[in-house]
């Protein structure tokens, strides 16, 4: 299987003293479902944003689909970004617009300035948006305003917006951190399904270890801006998890393979 994304020696410095990432290196294969876990403030969010350069890394290389992302100019970067969908913790929808308008926003990267500024979408694009929303179970809500939706529904709109981009990679930044367990399961099921049946690679930041273990092919553990674990979900041990979270043994509660480890 080919490698889709390579992150090599990426570091990110904020200001003078705060180092968010130091020498992060990993690669992601096409069709893989990768979870990035680690304590709050470990740099997971920054890491994800470095991949599509919402945040510029201070040093290091990022290679996505044979493009050297860190070297791209503005125009080329926009083109690469159309192939990378992004999903946010707070959904980041335009609250006053309808579900379908928010979904169609995913097409804006493909449009000329004029068509984009005027929001001109083709009938095909609208139909495609409706198809995606139907699959995500939102066909009843197509013309509803986004601020009238529940959190789980909003996140599904976020997924629809990313999917209509026709992406090769989905970056999900804490997609279920603001959701209740039930909605969380629906969202994670959808993400897993997108990966499995559409072959879209998924990189997701999570802080629930059990969820990461259940859904992912691979886990990357991050602590204080460094990768401290990189391996399959099956191979992870409770020791590894303690190392990732930097806590003394016996203080964490999580579920490893069905049996309770603490």
């Amino acid at each position, binding site marked *: 299987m080919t490698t889709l994304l390579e992150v090599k020696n990426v570091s990110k410095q904020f200001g003078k003293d705060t180092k968010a990432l130091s020498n992060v290196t990993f690669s992601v294969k096409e069709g893989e479902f990768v979870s990035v876990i680690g304590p709050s403030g470990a740099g997971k969010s920054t890491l994800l944003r470095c991949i*599509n350069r*919402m945040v510029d890394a201070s040093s290091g290389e990022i290679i996505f689909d044979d493009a050297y992302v860190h070297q791209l100019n503005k125009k080329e*970067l*926009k*083109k*690469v*970004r*159309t192939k*990378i*969908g*992004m999903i*946010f913790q*707070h*959904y*980041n*929808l*335009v*609250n*006053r*617009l309808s579900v379908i308008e928010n979904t169609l*926003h*995913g097409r*804006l*990267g*493909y*449009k000329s*300035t004029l068509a*984009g*500024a*005027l*929001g001109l979408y083709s009938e095909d694009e609208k139909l495609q948006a409706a198809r995606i929303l139907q699959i995500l179970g939102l066909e009843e809500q197509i013309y509803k305003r986004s601020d009238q939706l529940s959190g789980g529904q909003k996140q599904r709109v*976020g997924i629809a*917006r990313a999917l209509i*981009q026709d992406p090769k990679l989905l970056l999900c930044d804490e997609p279920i951190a603001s959701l209740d367990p039930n909605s969380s399961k629906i969202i994670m099921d959808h993400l897993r399904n997108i990966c499995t049946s559409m072959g879209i690679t998924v990189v997701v930041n999570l802080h629930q270890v059990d969820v990461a273990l259940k859904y992912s092919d691979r886990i990357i553990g991050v602590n204080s801006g460094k990768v401290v674990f990189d391996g399959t979900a099956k191979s992870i041990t409770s020791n590894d998890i303690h190392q990732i979270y930097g806590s003394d043994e016996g203080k964490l509660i999580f579920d490893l393979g069905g049996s309770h480890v603490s």
Partner: protein
Amino acid sequence: MSADVFAKKRRNSLLLLLIVGVATIVSIIITEYNMAKGFTSVPKAVQWALSNFYPTKDSLAKLPDILVKLKETLLISIAATTVAAVLAFIFAVLGSNTTKVNRFFGSISRGIAIIFRNIDVSVWSMVLLFSFGQSSFTGYFALFFGSFGFLTRAFIETIDEVSGSSVEALQATGANYLTVISQSVIPSTIPQMISWVLFMIETNIRNATLVGLLTGSGIGFTFNLYYKSLNYDIASLVVITIIISILCIEFISNYVRRVIL
């Protein structure tokens, strides 16, 4: 321990009260404000208003003239606000932390807005009188400059408050700058912006009266004319028309706000 906290709180309040008191006394002295006269002038003014300051049957004859001037003033206020709002939006997009192109343009546009909103319309009107004379331009530009400064600040706050997260999402899809502005910033901020514009129109009608007084145009001039010639009945009619038009605008903008927000 807790007694200490209360004592400290009381000391701070007393200190603050003392400062305010001293500042009040200093203000009274330097402005030569006469407390006694201040108190007695209110009942005197009420008495005078009740016996002189109301329109009579004869003054109604002047109503058509007054309405013409009122219309002119209303139109100037609306035109100045609308055009200022368009310019203010551009400056706000450049000046807002969420959407600024770079730091340099951000500071420049915020700086320009600070200067414009802190020069009062009365100052603008006296300066513009030199070049535009008693034409409608003087009032128009005086209101325009003031509104531009104020609206830029209001719009910057609105953009930062409302559209930060959706701007990030659209940038991540690879959309270009203008697209992000028109598809995310405008739709999410337009209700608030219209609300600010309506507020500004209200304010500008009041300011237009002042500008008219200073520059000899519009409804302010009409008031001054009758006020100075002691025709208080007609002057009161002018005030009543101003009150009615401002209350109407307030009613309309409250209605619009209810529907769009």
